[in-house]
């Protein structure tokens, strides 16, 4: 499957090593996608990487990606100024099951670091249909205040009816918010427990402990979903590099129901 050409329309630096790019398809209709899906993104011969789509699924005219520069390919993507052309294949992967959230349900979204990017489409999707749900709660953790994403949007999400709790691992005295790991926010959120729908994304260690904290708060594993990462190469279930137990993350994930995944994560060698 060949990459399609997408032009960089805007480029915004979010943190010291993270940029958000808005892209437009050079020909054809906008790329429709579901929250939680990803594309294989490339920048002219520097390699191809799986990057979650972080835009609004109800407005797919711009393909939005939030990218952390951690290697050759991502550094090249992050350096792409408006007018440059990037390659994108997709969208791929199993999405967040936002359409399965029952009316009136409480929804908790737990994000760690750049893990907020794959959850942003789900948040926007839910907020666009706010009247259907009970409490919408975002628990967001980051390393430090200057490494938080979408800080200008967090207040807007609160105004649209989402409870937003933010914490950082460490801070100076100028930070007046929470300091501590995101798992500590689970107790503070005073979730309803039974019937609560949960979605989590972030470093795998953070997700494991957050899911454990959610379970202690009464959120069922069958109603908890996470977005996993493994070394993806083809993105279309052929190469096998992203195998996780009997599944392929690019095809059967990246979003998994926790009750179906937990057993495999208990196996250290995987």
């Amino acid at each position, binding site marked *: 499957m060949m990459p399609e050409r997408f032009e960089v329309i805007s480029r915004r630096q979010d943190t010291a090593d993270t940029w958000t790019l808005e892209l437009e398809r050079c020909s054809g209709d906008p790329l429709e996608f579901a929250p939680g899906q990803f594309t294989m993104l490339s920048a002219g011969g520097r390699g191809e990487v799986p990057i979650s789509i972080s835009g609004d699924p109800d407005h797919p005219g711009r393909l939005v990606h939030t990218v*952390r520069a951690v290697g050759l390919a991502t550094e090249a993507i992050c350096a792409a100024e408006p007018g440059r052309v990037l390659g994108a294949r997709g969208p791929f992967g199993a999405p967040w099951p936002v359409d399965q959230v029952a009316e009136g349900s409480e929804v908790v979204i737990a994000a760690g670091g750049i893990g907020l990017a794959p959850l942003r489409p789900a948040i926007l999707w839910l907020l666009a249909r706010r009247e259907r749900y009970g409490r919408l709660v975002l628990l967001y953790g980051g*390393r430090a205040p200057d490494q938080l994403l979408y800080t200008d949007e967090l207040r807007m999400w609160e105004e649209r009816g989402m409870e937003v709790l933010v914490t950082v691992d460490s801070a100076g005295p100028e930070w*007046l918010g929470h300091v501590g790991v995101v798992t500590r926010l689970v107790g503070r959120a005073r979730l309803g427990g039974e019937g609560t729908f949960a979605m989590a994304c972030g*470093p795998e260690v*953070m997700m494991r402990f957050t899911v454990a904290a959610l379970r202690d708060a009464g959120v069922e594993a069958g109603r908890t979903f996470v977005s996993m990462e493994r070394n993806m190469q083809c993105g279309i279930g052929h190469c096998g590099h992203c195998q996780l137990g009997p599944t392929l993350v690019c095809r059967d994930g990246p979003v998994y129901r926790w009750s179906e995944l937990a057993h495999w994560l208990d196996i250290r060698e995987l």
Partner: protein
Amino acid sequence: MRTIDELIGSAPVFEGLERPHLEVIAGCGRNEHVDSGAFLLREGEPSERFFLIRRGTVALEVRAPGRILTVETLQAGDPVGWSWLTPPYRSRLDARALEACELIGFDGVCLRGKIEADHDLGYQLMRRFAENLVDRLQATRLQLLDVYGHA
């Protein structure tokens, strides 16, 4: 107006304690108010008190050359201060109010005396404090992993 034993009974760290025990603990406590920026505890100073936050936020801070680092923030329902429990009874961190706080301040010397006299009370308190400490130790270990710092 609620009494101190009624106020502390709803805090997670005292949850499930029987009324007589709550009354004994409350006998060592009093309502307090601190302004924003006030220190509840200072690193290295004698620590014979601990607090239960009723309203407000308290930061646990560590001083380093040229900077102050906040390692954790505590909110309503959280206890502040463990050094009153074990020798040498000196605070290990600064605890500073980030906003005006309503607290219940406890006399640690008073409570240590009550625990020595009533070992059942001592067990019940220690079990609850141990749970709180385990929870915060696990959180601290996660912070040490610096999970967001690695791709």
